[in-house]
């Protein structure tokens, strides 16, 4: 397990894809944080709670983890590296699990990096507007825990989906189409007054929002933080079972 995991981690580190995605993550995070500091009211930037809210941009790391998970797994089929992968690790379940854990670790590392950037930028730019840097450990830990959970699960989800579906472009485009177009529509339908099921909150993006967002009062269309983690883990389990079944039965030729 350690050998396979170490190899998967090395795979992630040794192509330029991760370098460009890291660069994109840092650039977007910087852009959002600086823009937020320059445009928001002073009152909205004062105090630990508000400043911790700015750390929410770290959730972008979950998207990058999802993309990397998808690219690394589908890349095995695209470039034919699935053959040497299965020659070194003939146990297919071990391949699925190792890739999933490596993608989880990547998600965690990406969040850590993004949040270090956010905190450094808050510390550097808030004084320019005469606002004191006031982040406190408790608030940082709260936001960090939520973003870490989301990024880890999304990374592994991408990895399992990639192994199950194989086609790189189709899978990446399909995931984004689902997240940004299809799911909001499906959510809207499921949560509409006509159906009134609130089932939309169980969809992957809605569950992520449940984990991540601060809720004030009761919202029937939103899961609790833990509920969101539980449901997201359920989606991950489903994708992993699909990857295990499909990769397990597939001839690699």
């Amino acid at each position, binding site marked *: 397990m350690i050998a396979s995991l170490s190899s998967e981690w090395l795979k992630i580190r*040794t192509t330029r894809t991760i370098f460009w995605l890291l660069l994109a993550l840092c650039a977007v995070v910087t852009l959002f944080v600086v823009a937020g500091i320059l445009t928001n009211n002073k009152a909205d930037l004062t105090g630990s709670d508000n400043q911790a809210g700015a750390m929410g941009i770290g959730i972008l790391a979950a998207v990058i983890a999802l993309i990397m998970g998808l690219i690394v797994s589908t890349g095995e089929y695209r470039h034919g590296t699935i053959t040497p992968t299965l020659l070194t690790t*003939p146990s297919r379940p071990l391949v699925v699990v190792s890739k999933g854990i490596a993608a989880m670790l990547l998600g965690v590392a990406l969040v850590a990096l993004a949040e270090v950037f956010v905190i450094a930028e808050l510390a550097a730019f808030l004084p320019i507007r005469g606002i004191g840097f006031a982040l406190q450990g408790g608030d940082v830990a709260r936001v960090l825990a939520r973003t870490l959970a989301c990024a880890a699960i999304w990374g592994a989800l991408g990895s399992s989906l990639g192994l199950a579906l194989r086609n790189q472009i189709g899978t990446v485009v399909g995931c984004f189409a689902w997240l940004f177009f299809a799911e909001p529509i499906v959510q809207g339908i499921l949560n509409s007054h006509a159906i009134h099921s609130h089932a939309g909150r169980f969809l992957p993006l809605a569950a992520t929002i449940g984990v991540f967002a601060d809720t004030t009062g009761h919202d029937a269309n939103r899961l609790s933080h833990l509920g969101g983690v539980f449901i997201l883990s359920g989606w991950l389990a489903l994708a992993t079972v699909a990857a295990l079944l499909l990769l397990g039965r597939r*001839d*690699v030729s």
Partner: protein
Amino acid sequence: MIAVEDLRKRYGKTLAVDGLSFTVEPGRVVGFLGPNGAGKTTTLRILLGLVRANSGQATILGQRYKELERPFCQVGAVFEASGFHPGRKARNHLRVLARAGRAPETRVDEVLKIVGLEGAAKKRVGAYSLGMRQRLALASALLGDPGVLILDEPANGLDPEGIRWLRDLLRSLAAEGRAVLISSHVLAEVEQTVDEVVIINKGKFVAHGSVESLTRSVEGRVRVRSPQAAKLRKQLVKAGLKIDVDGDALLVAGGPSSQIGEIAAKSQVVLHELTPITTQLEDVFFALTTDGEK
């Protein structure tokens, strides 16, 4: 060491491998030959657990590949010159495999040297030529210092110097007691490299033996040229010999050149050429695989 027993694999309506059986012993280089679509790659992939057989057994060192304790270090495999991420450097590609296969990472530089890629180790594989990729694939197979090598068309893309290098490498590996199973369509090349060959056609076993015994089993021919070819042909057919025409020459089977010369002399036919044609592996291959198609 490698044992294939009554192996069958069906893809839809196509029977890719049909009751195939053969063995490869240690210290032998065995050529695995067959026309395109004969089932060679499918058989090799079944041996390595990449494709599931419908029935039969394919074992290496008495076990299925995935049941071996350290499969990557016990069996090295090459499948065409693919299986590389083009954006990854060659050295890193090997490090990835060494880690997963539990081979020592110190072997990475050793195998790069063996295949002559030490100078290009830090280049991305996407910039490699086909020949360089083939060498890198061989380096991957040698990483675990395995006792068994299974190579699918390893000479593809190699230049003449590379082919000679490969031949010497395979011979030295076999001399160290390793079993080498090598599929190839470059028959002349295989002939110079292997101790024995397994020939298959349409998924079925056709022949297994040393190159020498197989070439002996195929009838030799004699190339004859004469300005009186029609007259000579008549006499040769009368003597029960089989004739094929090759341009202005006759290819005569069924008798030695001495018999043909005597027939020509008796018939007062002038000969311009009387050359026995040495039977080569290619002749055996075509004779056996064509027979199989009838």
